[in-house]
Protein backbone atom coordinates (compact mmCIF):
# COMPACT_ATOMS: atom_id res chain seq x y z
CA UNK A 1 0.00 0.00 0.00
CA UNK A 2 2.82 2.41 0.84
CA UNK A 3 5.77 0.85 -0.94
CA UNK A 4 8.19 3.77 -0.57
CA UNK A 5 7.81 3.61 3.19
CA UNK A 6 8.59 -0.10 3.23
CA UNK A 7 11.57 0.48 0.93
CA UNK A 8 12.96 3.26 3.08
CA UNK A 9 13.09 0.91 6.03
CA UNK A 10 14.76 -1.98 4.32
CA UNK A 11 17.00 -0.59 1.60
CA UNK A 12 18.18 2.80 0.35
CA UNK A 13 15.67 4.88 -1.61
CA UNK A 14 17.31 6.27 -4.77
CA UNK A 15 15.61 8.62 -7.20
CA UNK A 16 16.85 10.56 -10.23
CA UNK A 17 14.17 12.97 -11.37
CA UNK A 18 13.52 16.35 -12.94
CA UNK A 19 10.78 17.26 -10.42
CA UNK A 20 11.53 18.96 -7.12
CA UNK A 21 11.54 16.94 -3.88
CA UNK A 22 9.99 17.56 -0.46
CA UNK A 23 12.40 17.20 2.47
CA UNK A 24 9.60 16.88 5.03
CA UNK A 25 7.84 14.15 3.02
CA UNK A 26 11.08 12.18 2.73
CA UNK A 27 11.72 12.45 6.48
CA UNK A 28 8.14 11.37 7.18
CA UNK A 29 8.41 8.37 4.83
CA UNK A 30 11.64 7.33 6.53
CA UNK A 31 10.69 7.88 10.15
CA UNK A 32 6.89 7.81 10.35
CA UNK A 33 5.67 5.34 12.96
CA UNK A 34 9.16 4.26 13.97
CA UNK A 35 10.57 4.41 17.50
CA UNK A 36 14.12 3.20 16.86
CA UNK A 37 15.49 6.30 15.12
CA UNK A 38 17.51 8.69 17.27
CA UNK A 39 19.02 10.91 14.60
CA UNK A 40 18.11 12.13 11.13
CA UNK A 41 20.56 14.20 9.08
CA UNK A 42 19.47 15.80 5.83
CA UNK A 43 21.65 17.47 3.26
CA UNK A 44 20.02 19.67 0.63
CA UNK A 45 22.12 21.08 -2.19
CA UNK A 46 20.70 24.17 -3.86
CA UNK A 47 21.41 26.21 -6.98
CA UNK A 48 23.23 29.49 -6.25
CA UNK A 49 23.16 32.50 -8.56
CA UNK A 50 26.87 33.18 -7.98
CA UNK A 51 26.43 36.78 -7.05
CA UNK A 52 23.68 37.35 -9.60
CA UNK A 53 25.74 36.00 -12.51
CA UNK A 54 23.60 32.91 -13.20
CA UNK A 55 20.06 32.57 -14.53
CA UNK A 56 20.09 28.79 -14.04
CA UNK A 57 22.11 25.60 -13.98
CA UNK A 58 21.39 22.83 -16.45
CA UNK A 59 22.11 19.35 -15.18
CA UNK A 60 22.83 16.65 -17.73
CA UNK A 61 22.95 13.05 -16.51
CA UNK A 62 23.57 9.53 -17.76
CA UNK A 63 20.22 7.77 -17.33
CA UNK A 64 20.57 4.29 -15.93
CA UNK A 65 24.13 4.79 -14.73
CA UNK A 66 23.13 7.71 -12.46
CA UNK A 67 20.67 5.59 -10.44
CA UNK A 68 23.07 2.64 -10.36
CA UNK A 69 26.04 4.70 -9.22
CA UNK A 70 24.07 6.46 -6.47
CA UNK A 71 22.77 3.06 -5.36
CA UNK A 72 26.33 1.73 -5.14
CA UNK A 73 27.40 4.67 -2.97
CA UNK A 74 24.30 4.20 -0.80
CA UNK A 75 24.98 0.49 -0.36
CA UNK A 76 28.52 1.28 0.73
CA UNK A 77 27.18 3.82 3.26
CA UNK A 78 24.70 1.23 4.57
CA UNK A 79 27.56 -1.26 4.90
CA UNK A 80 29.77 1.20 6.83
CA UNK A 81 27.20 2.65 9.26
CA UNK A 82 24.26 1.10 11.15
CA UNK A 83 21.55 3.07 9.37
CA UNK A 84 17.82 2.80 9.89
CA UNK A 85 17.09 4.60 6.63
CA UNK A 86 18.80 6.28 3.69
CA UNK A 87 17.39 8.41 0.86
CA UNK A 88 19.25 10.00 -2.05
CA UNK A 89 17.48 12.09 -4.68
CA UNK A 90 19.27 13.91 -7.50
CA UNK A 91 17.50 16.21 -9.94
CA UNK A 92 18.38 16.84 -13.60
CA UNK A 93 17.30 19.44 -16.13
CA UNK A 94 17.08 23.20 -15.75
CA UNK A 95 17.35 24.35 -12.14
CA UNK A 96 17.07 27.99 -11.14
CA UNK A 97 18.82 29.81 -8.26
CA UNK A 98 17.20 28.97 -4.94
CA UNK A 99 15.87 25.62 -6.21
CA UNK A 100 16.89 22.22 -4.90
CA UNK A 101 19.43 20.03 -6.71
CA UNK A 102 20.17 17.10 -4.45
CA UNK A 103 18.88 15.57 -1.21
CA UNK A 104 20.41 13.01 1.13
CA UNK A 105 18.61 11.82 4.25
CA UNK A 106 20.38 9.46 6.65
CA UNK A 107 18.75 8.01 9.77
CA UNK A 108 20.30 5.99 12.57
CA UNK A 109 19.88 5.20 16.24
CA UNK A 110 22.87 7.48 16.91
CA UNK A 111 23.88 10.87 15.64
CA UNK A 112 27.45 10.20 14.57
CA UNK A 113 26.40 7.47 12.14
CA UNK A 114 23.73 9.71 10.61
CA UNK A 115 26.14 12.65 10.18
CA UNK A 116 28.96 10.57 8.75
CA UNK A 117 26.74 8.62 6.34
CA UNK A 118 25.19 11.83 4.92
CA UNK A 119 28.62 13.46 4.60
CA UNK A 120 30.05 10.33 2.92
CA UNK A 121 27.11 10.16 0.51
CA UNK A 122 27.65 13.75 -0.62
CA UNK A 123 31.41 13.35 -1.08
CA UNK A 124 30.92 10.29 -3.27
CA UNK A 125 27.88 11.58 -5.17
CA UNK A 126 29.88 14.64 -6.19
CA UNK A 127 32.73 12.63 -7.68
CA UNK A 128 31.03 9.39 -8.77
CA UNK A 129 27.48 10.09 -9.89
CA UNK A 130 27.33 10.89 -13.65
CA UNK A 131 25.90 14.41 -13.62
CA UNK A 132 27.35 17.47 -15.33
CA UNK A 133 26.41 21.06 -14.59
CA UNK A 134 26.30 23.76 -17.23
CA UNK A 135 25.89 27.41 -16.36
CA UNK A 136 23.22 29.56 -17.98
CA UNK A 137 24.48 33.12 -17.58
CA UNK A 138 21.95 35.83 -16.86
CA UNK A 139 23.46 37.81 -19.74
CA UNK A 140 22.48 35.06 -22.17
CA UNK A 141 24.65 33.06 -24.53
CA UNK A 142 25.97 29.53 -24.20
CA UNK A 143 27.30 29.06 -20.70
CA UNK A 144 30.34 27.10 -19.65
CA UNK A 145 30.36 23.60 -18.22
CA UNK A 146 31.23 23.68 -14.53
CA UNK A 147 34.71 22.29 -13.96
CA UNK A 148 35.28 19.57 -11.40
CA UNK A 149 37.26 20.71 -8.39
CA UNK A 150 40.35 18.91 -7.20
CA UNK A 151 39.09 19.39 -3.65
CA UNK A 152 36.07 17.19 -4.45
CA UNK A 153 38.32 14.35 -5.55
CA UNK A 154 40.61 14.98 -2.58
CA UNK A 155 37.63 14.79 -0.21
CA UNK A 156 37.26 11.09 -0.99
CA UNK A 157 40.50 10.43 0.87
CA UNK A 158 38.70 11.30 4.12
CA UNK A 159 36.91 7.96 3.93
CA UNK A 160 39.84 5.60 3.24
Amino acid sequence: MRPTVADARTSPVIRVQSEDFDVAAEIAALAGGRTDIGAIVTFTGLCRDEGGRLAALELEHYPGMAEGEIARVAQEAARRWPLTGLVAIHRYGLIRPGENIVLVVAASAHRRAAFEAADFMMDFLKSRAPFWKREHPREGGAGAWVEAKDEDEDALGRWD
Partner: protein
Amino acid sequence: MSVKVVYFAWLRERIGKPEETIDPPAGVTTIADLAAHLAGLGEEYAYAFENPSIVRAAIDRVHAKPDAPIAGAREIAFFPPMTGG
Protein backbone atom coordinates in the same frame (compact mmCIF):
# COMPACT_ATOMS: atom_id res chain seq x y z
CA MET B 1 32.41 -6.72 -32.67
CA SER B 2 30.44 -3.47 -32.65
CA VAL B 3 29.69 -1.49 -29.52
CA LYS B 4 27.45 1.43 -28.67
CA VAL B 5 29.49 4.47 -27.59
CA VAL B 6 27.81 7.35 -25.75
CA TYR B 7 29.11 10.83 -24.95
CA PHE B 8 28.10 13.38 -22.33
CA ALA B 9 28.53 17.08 -21.60
CA TRP B 10 31.31 18.78 -23.56
CA LEU B 11 32.49 15.51 -25.11
CA ARG B 12 29.03 15.14 -26.63
CA GLU B 13 29.10 18.74 -27.82
CA ARG B 14 32.57 18.54 -29.33
CA ILE B 15 31.86 15.27 -31.15
CA GLY B 16 28.46 16.59 -32.21
CA LYS B 17 26.39 13.51 -31.39
CA PRO B 18 25.19 11.81 -28.23
CA GLU B 19 25.90 8.25 -29.35
CA GLU B 20 27.03 6.06 -32.20
CA THR B 21 27.92 2.48 -32.96
CA ILE B 22 31.64 1.81 -33.35
CA ASP B 23 33.33 -1.28 -34.74
CA PRO B 24 36.78 -1.08 -33.14
CA PRO B 25 39.64 -2.46 -35.27
CA ALA B 26 41.77 -5.36 -34.03
CA GLY B 27 44.22 -4.25 -31.38
CA VAL B 28 41.72 -1.93 -29.67
CA THR B 29 41.21 -3.89 -26.47
CA THR B 30 41.02 -1.31 -23.63
CA ILE B 31 39.24 1.94 -22.85
CA ALA B 32 42.50 3.82 -23.52
CA ASP B 33 42.87 2.07 -26.90
CA LEU B 34 39.30 2.99 -27.82
CA ALA B 35 39.79 6.63 -26.81
CA ALA B 36 42.95 6.79 -28.95
CA HIS B 37 41.12 5.18 -31.85
CA LEU B 38 38.23 7.64 -31.56
CA ALA B 39 40.65 10.59 -31.36
CA GLY B 40 41.84 9.63 -34.85
CA LEU B 41 38.38 9.65 -36.46
CA GLY B 42 38.39 13.37 -37.28
CA GLU B 43 38.90 16.91 -36.09
CA GLU B 44 35.87 16.91 -33.74
CA TYR B 45 37.04 13.67 -32.09
CA ALA B 46 40.60 14.95 -31.78
CA TYR B 47 39.20 18.03 -30.01
CA ALA B 48 37.03 15.94 -27.66
CA PHE B 49 39.95 13.69 -26.69
CA GLU B 50 42.69 16.34 -26.84
CA ASN B 51 43.42 15.77 -23.15
CA PRO B 52 42.69 12.07 -22.65
CA SER B 53 43.87 12.12 -19.02
CA ILE B 54 40.80 14.06 -17.94
CA VAL B 55 38.27 11.99 -19.91
CA ARG B 56 36.35 9.49 -17.77
CA ALA B 57 34.74 6.31 -19.02
CA ALA B 58 32.16 3.70 -18.09
CA ILE B 59 31.55 0.20 -19.42
CA ASP B 60 27.93 -0.91 -19.28
CA ARG B 61 27.14 1.96 -16.89
CA VAL B 62 29.90 1.20 -14.38
CA HIS B 63 33.01 3.38 -13.99
CA ALA B 64 35.98 1.94 -15.88
CA LYS B 65 39.70 2.79 -15.80
CA PRO B 66 41.77 3.40 -18.95
CA ASP B 67 43.24 -0.12 -18.83
CA ALA B 68 39.83 -1.82 -18.49
CA PRO B 69 39.25 -4.40 -21.27
CA ILE B 70 36.31 -3.60 -23.52
CA ALA B 71 35.67 -7.14 -24.79
CA GLY B 72 32.00 -8.02 -24.38
CA ALA B 73 30.91 -4.46 -23.57
CA ARG B 74 27.47 -3.45 -24.84
CA GLU B 75 27.73 0.28 -24.04
CA ILE B 76 30.82 2.37 -23.48
CA ALA B 77 30.52 5.96 -22.25
CA PHE B 78 33.02 8.82 -22.34
CA PHE B 79 32.45 11.96 -20.29
CA PRO B 80 34.20 14.77 -18.39
CA PRO B 81 34.84 14.61 -14.62
CA MET B 82 31.47 14.67 -12.89
CA THR B 83 30.09 17.83 -11.34
CA GLY B 84 26.86 16.68 -9.71
CA GLY B 85 25.89 16.96 -6.07
